[in-house]
């Protein structure tokens, strides 16, 4: 009989997905003084997954995260879901490519900031397409907030990776 204390890769994706949902929930509860500013806490599992999952599994995690976050914020059947999914897929791809191509020459903070900015740029483009040219005026504050939140999330991810006993346990099983 298989030991149940050893998670499979499928379990790991589901755990990261659940973690993204849980962090979305925490973020959802925190009141936002300005509506479009997001901390992006749910991206923590995506950053953790960068070096630990294969391409297909990584994309699956982004999909699970996007569907789960939309379920939590109640936007699954609205255009906001497409807006968020497009941002997540592009930022996920940018972060994945940066990590694969530049490997050790880019830090987690750099990857996180690039992901946040690419996600914001896609979201601004989608907003311009849907809402018209007026939407571009919110572009600059969104990019500034994306930079700050990406930077803070990168710092938080570094700290989590450094401190997490759970992640060390998973790594020792996978290697």
């Amino acid at each position, binding site marked *: 009989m298989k030991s149940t204390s050893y*998670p499979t890769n499928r*379990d790991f994706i*589901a755990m990261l997905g*659940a973690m993204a949902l*849980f962090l979305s*929930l925490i973020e959802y509860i925190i009141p936002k003084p300005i509506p479009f500013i997001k901390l992006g806490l749910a991206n923590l599992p995506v950053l953790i997954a960068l070096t630990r999952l294969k391409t297909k599994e990584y994309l699956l995690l982004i999909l699970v995260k996007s569907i789960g976050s939309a379920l939590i914020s109640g936007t699954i059947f609205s255009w906001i879901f497409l807006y968020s999914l497009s941002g997540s897929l592009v930022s996920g791809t940018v972060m994945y490519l940066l990590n694969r191509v530049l490997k050790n020459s880019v830090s987690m903070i750099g990857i996180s900031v690039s992901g946040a900015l690419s996600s914001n740029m896609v979201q601004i483009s989608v907003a311009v397409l849907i809402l018209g040219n007026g939407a571009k005026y919110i572009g600059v504050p969104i990019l500034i907030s994306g930079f700050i939140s990406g930077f803070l999330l990168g710092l938080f991810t570094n*700290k*989590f990776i450094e401190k997490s006993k759970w992640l060390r346990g998973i790594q020792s099983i996978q290697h």
Partner: protein
Amino acid sequence: MYFTVIAINLVSPNGLVILKIGSFSITKDSLLKGIEKSSLLTGILYLSKNISLTKIKIPGNLGIIIRDTFHYFSQLTGGDRIRPQNLIEDLDNKLLELKPFSSSDSLIKPLAGSSKMVLPVCTIVTITMFTIDNILLST
């Protein structure tokens, strides 16, 4: 939890002041946002507590991952609370305690009498949302 989420939202005032207690003001938009968030979260938590217990099977690997995701999510939302000042350690402890779905078909127990509670909870959430949309927002 319902009232905690409302209270958290009341901390950042927004909109018309409807009640003043000392220096603390309860504002209409913050109260509505708090009720809306609480209702939605209650619904989501009940959904996650019960989704892994239902006989609905989504085919394929994606279906298994979604089922397992909700299974782990229901474990993360239960148990000890997360303290904001100790977010990493508390989150890590919760992750360390996760039990895989394969090992715990019987580990995730439904909330006491949860199958009987699903309908009343759904009714309460629906009525609350209806009230917010149709009565309070029109004033």
